[in-house]
């Protein structure tokens, strides 16, 4: 049973981690907070269901299509709202509020298009379960862990070891200096938001077959993803995943061995503890103090 709980906690943690990756990426590359991540996950799940479940487009193709759509969505969000507010010289808090407003628009918009009932996201794999360490794990859950790891490593490599990733970080640190060096700051920032949205949508498509798809699917996950990013070290890719894993495991083990009533209490006390004792997170990312 303990292995089963461990795996469930890890799956949950990986979903939180994928969302946390988006928060971290945006903060790392543009110094902003984006609270639409959870609802973008929902939108991704709905789009995935539409292409895969309704139009019967192969899953891999569905992932590519939704990834591209959400990449565009994230860029449009940044260009159409965030950068406009920044250009007006509004306080950073207003951009955060704008992202909260957008999250409600996505939630209500999804309600209008797909309705309020739970929708069954068809299974991705023919093999229902795979056996790891003697316990049955739903194939989609295992893939979820695998994809999260791949995303974490690739995003880290992209940000740290590619020219474009370096440009993105430079654009976030000092836009003026970056511009003077010939970096396209606008494109770099837009792309960051796009990638974050695409990763969140990917998470939505992965958890769709596990949980079904409904309009509030990403609401709680979004909040927990934020907490994960803070715990891991806001702005750090590995920290995002580790924070997610810790939060997922803490929640699951608290439910199993203490009480389900204390699950959220313990999780958020952990977040507050990190904010007070180690605001730079496990990976000592200095983003919070910037």
């Amino acid at each position, binding site marked *: 049973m303990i292995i089963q709980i461990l795996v469930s*906690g890890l799956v949950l943690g990986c979903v939180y981690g994928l969302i946390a990756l988006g928060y971290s990426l945006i903060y790392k590359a543009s110094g902003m907070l984006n609270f639409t991540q959870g609802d973008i996950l929902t939108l991704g799940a709905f789009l995935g269901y539409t292409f895969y479940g309704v139009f019967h487009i192969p899953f891999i193709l569905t992932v590519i299509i939704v990834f591209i759509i959400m990449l565009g969505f994230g860029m449009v969000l940044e260009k159409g709202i965030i950068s406009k507010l920044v250009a007006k010289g509004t306080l950073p808090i207003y951009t955060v509020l704008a992202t909260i407003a957008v999250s409600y628009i996505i939630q209500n918009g999804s309600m209008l298009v797909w309705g309020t009932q739970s929708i069954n996201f068809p299974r991705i794999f023919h093999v229902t379960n795979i056996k790891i360490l003697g316990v049955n794990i739903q194939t989609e859950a295992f893939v979820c862990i695998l994809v999260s790891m791949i995303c974490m490593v690739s995003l880290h490599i992209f940000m740290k070891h590619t020219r474009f990733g370096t440009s993105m970080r430079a654009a976030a640190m000092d836009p003026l200096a970056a511009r003077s060096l010939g970096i396209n700051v606008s494109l770099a920032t837009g792309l960051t938001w796009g990638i974050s949205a695409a990763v969140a949508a990917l998470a939505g498509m992965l958890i769709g077959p596990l949980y*079904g798809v409904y309009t509030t699917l990403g609401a709680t996950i979004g909040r927990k993803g934020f907490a994960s990013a803070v715990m891991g070290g806001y702005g750090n890719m590995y920290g995002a995943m580790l924070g997610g894993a810790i939060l997922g495991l803490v929640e699951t083990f608290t439910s199993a061995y203490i009480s389900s009533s204390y699950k959220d209490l313990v999780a958020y006390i952990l977040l507050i503890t990190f904010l007070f004792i180690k605001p730079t997170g496990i990976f000592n990312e200095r983003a919070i103090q910037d």
Partner: protein
Amino acid sequence: MKKQLSKILALGLSLTMFLTACGAGKTSTKTEETTTGAAVSESTTGTAEVGEIFVIGNPQPLTGVNAQVGESANMAAELAVKVINKEGGFNGVPIKLVNYDDQGSPEEAVKIANKMIQVDKVDAILGSLTSSNVLAAGGIYNEARIPTIGTGNSPTWMQQGWEYVFRAGLNTALSMPHVTEKMLSLNVKKVAVFRGLDDAAKTSAETFIEEAKKAGIEVTTIESYTEGDTDFSGQVAKMINSKPDAVFCSTNGPTQAIFAKQLRQLGFNNLCFNREGIPVDTINVAGDAVNNWVFAYPYVVYSSIEEAKDPEMKEFLELYFQAYGVMPFHDCAYRSWDAMMVFWEASKIAGSNDKEAIKDAISKIKDFKSLGGMLDFTDGTREGLHTLNDYIIIDGKYLDFNEWLKAGNISKLAE
């Protein structure tokens, strides 16, 4: 180019916000006028002047997670208005529904209640299907002496002693002794409970626990969840470790399907009992995981008219399908229809549309055939429904649980 792009984006956003604001408009089929928050619509068939119309206030959730359920309830209520007015209304007076979107929020329910009484001068109230909203607004209706038929299932609002507030649907508190009786007959001695924290889910679970204790059934563990959670493996692990013979589940919305999947995934294959009917969308999402789930409920949601055996139900489904081209999405449609029929019957018994007379007449209704079974309000509890049917889900279909037991299927389950 940049200016054009921002104009397009602004237009797109405005359109989305407009559509969001009009969410209630889409969910109510005959909405003529809607506003955000308290979405209002009126519908009547007939041409009587104001003052010659019997006005029924109908607050239901038309936005939010229960929007589709509220829409289904409203469609049935509108259909009832059409049928009743065609037959001459209440004692020759046409009836009219004033629809409001209570957003499933008690705060909104109170605001709407005051508006319906002071501005719309309603003669009766139908709903809400959200029990916590009836609990919040019921006292206001009662004080204004307006006959009300709530359509939520929770026992709490009927425990307040409001003499003007009635129910024509199921009180889950009444079904709990039935469920524990059924468990005893199946030799269930230990049960684990999984419950939500909203009023309906919590109260049903508490009533069940009380009844289980009375019946000598041991409650091995009580696990809860927060709305929006997607992982219940911790709770499930604890429940399975407590080695129950069965699981009792008191949840709402999408949680049910996810919980059922994780419960089966972690290896619990025995019978599970649900506090109320399991809707079709839950079955679609949960698939095989809701096999062997049992519930005691007056009705189930049918996918086709042919599935229904009861003539009253068949007739209602035919009318509904004829009017809207779809089957009712949720049993809340049945509840609203039955409530409207009770008002109609009361107006006939009273022979007048006076609020006091209607209220007194509801208490006299006996042996009245509804979609949920025979209604009897004469015992003074203001509850009309006292009978239940037992169902089990097998391969996505609702089967008669007692027939299933008679066929000896329980021994196959044990194997």
